[in-house]
């Protein structure tokens, strides 16, 4: 992680920065605070962080707003872990 990967509204975003932003967006929906403290790219959003599955849609819509991207339903099917979310955002920004 850490390589310059993307420019968002003229500001370069590293994968680490996207990861940090993703965690910040997910945080209000997390029910397992301990898992959040140890969060990494392999952390499963539903199973580890205990986010309600219905709220995952809200989270992805927040990604759209924060990163100014558009996500299709089929894209969202691939989002299981925090790393999946980061990868999706990187792909959309590219």
């Amino acid at each position, binding site marked *: 992680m850490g390589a310059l990967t993307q420019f968002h509204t003229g500001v370069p975003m590293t994968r680490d920065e996207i990861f940090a932003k993703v965690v910040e967006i997910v945080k209000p929906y997390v029910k397992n605070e301990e898992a959040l403290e140890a969060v990494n790219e392999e952390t499963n959003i539903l199973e580890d962080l205990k986010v309600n599955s*219905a709220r995952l849609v809200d989270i992805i819509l927040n990604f759209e707003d924060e990163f100014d991207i*558009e996500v299709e*339903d089929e894209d*969202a099917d691939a989002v299981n872990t925090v790393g999946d979310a980061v990868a999706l955002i990187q792909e959309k920004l590219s």
Partner: protein
Amino acid sequence: MTRLSFSTRAAHAFQREVGRLAALFWVLAIPFILRVLMRYRIKDVAGVRTRYRALLKESDRPFLICPNHLTMMDSAVITWALGGSWWYLFHYSRLPWNLPEYNNFASQWPTRVGAWLTKCIPVIRGGRREDISRVIKRVQHLLARGETALIFPEAGRSRSGRVEADSVAHAVGRILTSVPGCQSLCVYLRGDRQQTWSTVPARGDSFYIDFELMEPKSDHAGMRRSRHFSQQIVDRLVGMEEEYFAGR
């Protein structure tokens, strides 16, 4: 819309045709359970069924039945109210496919068999996204080929006893946005004795039912469009509920 594999399409056809044969038996069993054992009544049932059949004649477009959700019997009562068991025997494609929560019926084999024979596709709410996506694709396929399905647009039985506008099931909008021409049949069902949510309605309850075909619109794209569709359906159900309470 993704095309289903041959094996999945064949499994649907097998389930549908075996269910059609089994319908010869449950057309007697379902009314016996609902009318005789549970003593349920539908208000103006003849008028409801006439309206429903007229609606089917007016449009050959696919539609998804989207009711409010208070009890685990809602889909059975709605299906019975709209068509009547004998009618489904001769209009089997109009018997809606249902998506019951797997854990609600899977513990005993008779309920599993019963669900399979009555066009149920089990879903594990909060389960793996790829599994849920697979179920959604199955429903998309079924609607596109002219069948009917029933999905609750609220994300669960309403704990408050009223339609919860901030509890929206995204899958409903996702299905509607992906099946060309698909409409939503918003259905409001409520037993006179139903104060809040429950497992089954009270024995002897009398049900009010109203329905309205709607076609959600949205300027959004992607997931936001699907969410907007789901929200419009839930909002319409809120409106139908207000009309119900205003008319009491």
